[in-house]
């Protein structure tokens, strides 16, 4: 019979229409909040989701996964006396690997000897050109440049970030990427321990 297929299709929309209310009401009855809570957002992006699926940005925001990447930042360690220890050594790997070439680095030289010093004199990142590929963070041998999570940064002007704008503390990095941070810290400690053991072993026969 003509129209049966349409009715069959409409039964799907009809079911989904009621699902919306059933899901909302069951959340309300159980006393949980489906909207504007982390639990609710997680439910809406789980395999069991049905009913209203959308997340009402900006009132609600999706929980970004740890690996989410948006624009790089430079990491500094906070020393006990409050100074910033910039991890970047201005080796230039990030500038070389960057596909759209949006990183500019000025290497600083020792005024006396003229030899390069392991700290950048200036660091520019053209945020309008950056394609958020994450290569700089991936290939940095010093864990000095990492990808940020902060994505709502729309502006009407050209955004060329300088060193000051790019620097963020290691504690911030630990906050947005806890797993990666602990992994790297452990690797670094193991490396230092190995180095110390090696130095000790080298020093022992000499003495």
């Amino acid at each position, binding site marked *: 019979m003509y129209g049966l297929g349409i009715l069959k299709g409409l039964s799907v929309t009809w079911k989904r229409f009621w699902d919306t209310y059933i899901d909302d009401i069951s959340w309300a009855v159980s006393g949980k909040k489906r909207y504007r809570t982390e639990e609710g957002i997680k439910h809406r992006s789980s395999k069991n989701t049905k009913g209203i699926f959308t997340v009402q940005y900006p009132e609600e925001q999706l929980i970004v*996964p740890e690996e989410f990447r948006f624009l790089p930042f430079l990491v500094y360690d906070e020393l006990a006396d409050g100074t910033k220890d910039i991890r970047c050594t201005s080796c230039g790997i990030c500038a070389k690997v960057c596909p759209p070439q949006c990183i500019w680095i000025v*290497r600083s030289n020792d005024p006396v000897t003229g030899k390069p010093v392991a700290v950048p004199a200036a660091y520019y990142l053209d945020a309008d050109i950056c394609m958020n590929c994450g290569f700089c963070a991936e290939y940095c041998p010093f864990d000095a440049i990492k990808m940020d999570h902060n994505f709502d940064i729309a502006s009407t002007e050209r955004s060329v970030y300088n060193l000051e704008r790019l620097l963020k503390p290691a504690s911030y990095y630990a906050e947005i990427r806890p797993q990666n941070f602990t992994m790297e810290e452990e690797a670094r400690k193991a490396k230092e321990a190995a180095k110390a053991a090696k130095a000790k072993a080298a020093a022992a026969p000499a003495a």
Partner: protein
Amino acid sequence: MATPTLTQTVDLVARFPGKVTADERPGYSGFIVTKESLIEVATAVRDEFGFDLLSSLTGVDYLAENKMEVVYNAYKTTGGAGLEFKVQVERVDPIEVPSLTGIWRGAEYQEREVWDLYGIKFTDHPDMRRILMWEGFEGHPLRKDWKEAFYEEEIKPYKSRWPEGKHTFAEDRNPFHDNLNLPKDFDPEKYVVDKEEDLYASLERHTMKDEEGKMKTDSVVVNLGPHHPSTHGVLRVAVTLNGETVMGLKPVMGYLHRNHEKIGERNTFTQIIPYTDRLDYFNSMSNNFGYVTAVEKLMKIQVAERAEYIRVIMAELSRIQNHLIFVGMLINDLGSMFTPAFYVFEERELILDIFEAVSGSRMMCNYYRFGGVVRDVSDEMLQKIKDLVFERLPAKTDEVERLLNENELLVGRLKGTHVLSAEDAINFSVTGPVLRASGVPYDLRRADPYSIYDRFDFDVAVRHNGDMMDNYLIRFDEIRQSLRILEQALKQIPQGPINSQKPNYQIKVPAGEAYGRIESPKGELGFYIVSNGKGNPYRYHVRAPSFVNLTAIEKMCIGTKIQDFVALLAMLDIVMGELDR
């Protein structure tokens, strides 16, 4: 279940002594054909040796040797290895090579592209116009001596970035402070757009004048697009109409052209990976897959076992979400606004959540590396994929089918329109679901298995009518087969390293050439790469399925109603990021 590959050695040199020589440059393969005997050899390649599908046709500019080369890659639709042959011509204008459109119609747009970007003229081509650049453009941009407006250096990394990297804006390097490269003596006051005549003249070939003599009617030229909601981007199609019937049709493309290949040739091998994400932006995973497959072929490296499985899982998830989007957008174009589209978007969102968690980005994944993938998939994520593959997606696919497949309005609209026969589909180099809907079971995962696809048990989805309804239904078949592959891959995935290579940002690739291809959701995605042993590719060509599949659109449309054209465009599943490159 491995498919037996056909191993018939093709020796063109013995068949055509004096006309064909083997390509003996180190790292190269295939044959070099003389310009004069090209038609004869190509006919034999198709008719005697059975290479019925011309996959890729592209040019290479060997500036140092003062030569231009046209490279042809032909395959058999019954499967097996391909045949590569080349024509070399002196690099002195006018450069002319005979056109192969008489043998493979699929060469038509690709030859136009080579003319546009390399300035190699194909004699006896039915419609030798520019295709990506606009008429009146100065020069041929892929030639090695052509420089773009923001030209800084021949290859990346640019020396100005480090160690004395003072930031400058790219537009300050250009005297116009803008992305412009105007011809000499150009006066904007006096410029008149006159090159459109060529386009309309090319349509005239199909315009039938009044034959009955009873009533004289003029044909009408209609331009669909560039800003038409159904063109999925900026594609313009010039159509001549007799009433509602299409008499002639020519797509006009290039509005999104950015010369991806020139950018690629400036980039290092690694730097190209994120750029491939931007080709078919729905399937960045597949694009990565195709590119790394081609480069790995050239580097002759093994891929880590676990990474192979991760690659297949991601590529198949990508295929599922692509086909779901396809269904949603098709129905959207046909006028059922948004309800089905948003139903399928939910499933796509869940798949994109997985991509985001493993790669860091929803659409621009940049996930594959030479020898493996960038990072491991956690057990938690694998569980999430399993939940989707084993529980949610099969049920949701059924739901979409229940919603749409028997809908009388949809069936009435799709059944029996725009039939593409198997012969035509092969002749026009159509690949992917559109070819398989015409009854040709040609799927690279079976026909020329790459990665680990020979380990999985799945069927090649095929339908036989070649009409729009089959084109539509085959997408659901493919989703089901992808789910089958995923189920097996998720059960078999081993533990282990995820990359066989050490991380290296300056990869050197041995000199030579390679044509790597994969079955992307839209068809055969091929990458032709020439390396001269340095860190940057000498030639980087993308054989985009959207672009080549569009060659058949004229054939499919003539004699049909203009309203159905919108459905056809959605059916070919074109993506402008890939089509215009």
